[in-house]
């Protein structure tokens, strides 16, 4: 089992810290996830599990430290993002002034404002679009001049990180299959034009996507429930649907936030089975955030324990179970 832990890390978090005003939710936590492993993050309520989780996912920017995924620096404290808006606006302003100047000196153009206006618009457009779409090269350029904006959740997904929510956040009014289809968003290539043209290519893609979606539903054990509105599914199924949705983006790393919360033992068992199946058959790496020790002890290769935002223990389930500080955190000190 412990062989897995020697795999090269897929995700590395260094000294991740997050403060909210005065209070420190997560302080200098180092954390790595080896490939193909199932690692868990546990801790009593208010230990900062979810905050840490959100930092990993780019939902919250860390106050300090950074997160690397597949060797790429994804999340870190934003640097000089205020200047980025200058990057967008400056070119247009410069051009505008230049053109206006030319116009007023009457050198090239007799209608300064008109011409300048058009130019400025186009440049502004271009730079703004750039700032929104943020292609990689653009981000690299920015990084070179010291402007770093850490990844947004969708960037993490594109990079290959899937997630589920502690309190289920499905698109309640869409059908199960549609939820999964939304999950496939990053995988699908059809664009505005092909959608408008309703091209054969897109229709094929859509058809294929449906097949795949149904496969995923089957995989998580929701076959045949595809056309039910997500809100009408029983609780356990909603959890499974959320996992299916996360899988739809073909993630390499799957982050499950208290997947067993509110499940009965039976459902929990199925879940455990499903999780190890995901790892063994789809070759995913899985990070569990759990409250329920039993589940974690069962399947984790490694367990990390947080308390009051600090990492108090890390190791195999056995080691952690024995660790006095863990016991104290769970039994001794009341949950913060």
């Amino acid at each position: 089992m412990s062989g897995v832990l020697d795999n090269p890390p897929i995700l590395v978090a260094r000294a991740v810290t997050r403060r909210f005003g005065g209070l420190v939710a997560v302080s200098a936590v180092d954390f790595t996830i080896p490939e193909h492993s199932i690692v868990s993050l546990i801790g009593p309520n208010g230990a900062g599990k979810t905050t840490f989780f959100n930092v990993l996912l780019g939902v919250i920017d860390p106050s300090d430290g950074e997160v690397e995924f597949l060797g790429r620096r994804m999340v870190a404290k934003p640097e000089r993002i205020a200047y980025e808006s200058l990057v967008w606006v400056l070119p247009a302003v410069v051009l505008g002034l230049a053109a206006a100047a030319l116009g007023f000196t009457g050198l090239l153009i007799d209608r300064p404002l008109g011409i300048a206006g058009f130019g400025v618009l186009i440049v502004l457009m271009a730079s703004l679009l750039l700032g929104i779409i943020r292609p990689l090269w653009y981000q690299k350029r920015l990084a070179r001049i010291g402007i770093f904006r850490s990844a947004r959740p969708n960037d993490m997904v594109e990079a290959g990180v899937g997630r589920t929510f502690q309190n289920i956040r499905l698109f309640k009014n869409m059908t199960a299959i549609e939820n999964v289809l939304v999950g496939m968003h990053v995988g699908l290539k059809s664009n505005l034009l092909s959608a408008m043209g309703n091209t054969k290519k897109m229709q094929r893609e859509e058809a294929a996507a449906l097949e795949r979606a149904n496969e995923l539903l089957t995989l998580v054990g929701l076959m045949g429930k595809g056309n039910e509105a997500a809100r009408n599914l029983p609780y356990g199924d909603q959890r499974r649907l959320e996992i299916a949705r996360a899988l739809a983006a073909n993630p390499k790393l799957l982050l499950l936030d208290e997947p067993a919360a509110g499940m009965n033992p039976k459902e929990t068992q199925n879940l455990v089975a499903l999780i190890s199946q995901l790892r063994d058959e789809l070759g995913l790496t899985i990070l569990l955030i759990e409250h329920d020790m039993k589940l974690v002890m069962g399947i984790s290769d490694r367990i990390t324990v947080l308390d009051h935002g600090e990492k108090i223990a890390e190791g195999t389930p056995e080691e952690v179970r024995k660790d006095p500080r863990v016991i104290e955190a769970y039994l001794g000190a009341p949950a913060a």
Partner: protein
Amino acid sequence: MSAVQELPAATPAGPRFAGLKKRAGRHRSWTITLSVAVVGAGLALIAYIPPFTLAQPSNAWIDGYTNAGVFVMLALGLNLVVGVAGLLDLGYAAFFAIGAYTYAYVASPFGNSILGINLIETMGNQAAGIVFWPMLLVGALVAATFGILLGAPTLRLRGDYLAIVTLGFGEIVPIVFLNSDAVTNGTNGIGGLVRPALPIMGAFSAMNPYPYYITMLVLVAIIMMLCYRLVESRLGRAWEAIREDELAAAATGINTVTTKLLAFALGASTAGIAGVFNASKLVTVSPDQFTFIVSFTVLAMVVLGGMGNFWGVAVGAFVIYTINNVLLKSLNQFFDTTGIPILKDVDFIQLQFLLYGLALVAMMLLRPEGLFPNSRRKRELHTAITMDEQDSMTTAEATSEEGQR
């Protein structure tokens, strides 16, 4: 992936669903083309049936339909923004104006002199009208450009900001057209636009409303078709996902900003098309054609028609237009002539926006899905009202999380 491959590919839901989908797409295009044609023919027919011909000559009816059609286009476009993507755009008239002025610049002597082209001199007043057709596209593009310019800074922020910024934008655009006399001829507006022309038949004419009418029908049909295709595509799903839960949408890999921006730009471009068409019909554009009243009227049309449902919105737009421009007015004149003491003094036109207001509030409280609801929107809006604390909390938490970006 091995496991997935091994799984039985043909699950019961799979092919059936896929089949459905494909047929839906085709079927839709035909239904729209046909039903627009039928409706168009029907309306045209009405214009020749005695009781209606007494009210006003048939041509006037057709012309009226065409004006209504402009609002239908606007409503369809706004529906894409408000109804589908759930972004509140209160400055919609601005894009309408931008479209109109775009056409004016290319298709009027004054505009040509500003742009430094001499299209009209070279082609002549009649033939120059051919530019109308490409201009439909150009107008759409220019409007979309401004849409992006406006949306780019604001769509990164939460929705409400968009509402107020668009409202401001809707105020600015007329002011700009009004005050930069040198390039827009200021308050006098730009006159002498050329009417659209077709190779065989030459230019449209004020005497014969049918060419405009049919053009309008075609535009409406195309817009509606594209709207449906978009909504059924990957983009449409993304928009709905964002509308339902923005954080979850982001967590499934949707780039919420670009996707929202796309919806916003598409809505703008539709308004641009409507603007070009309207300008080519009035052959004059001036800033006072694009007040915020237009924006709010269109919004009312969308909300009352049924957010998210294109047919509903189209019908809603037509109905409300008729109420505005025909019903209330004739009520007025009727009661003016028949000197019924109280009713004579009531000015129904003045009541109109009061009615809008009441209708909007009542709608949101009682039937938020609108008169002709979109099934999913209906589910959503109704559940929303009986949403339990848990959900409201998570949404709040979500927004706060989002914010920390």
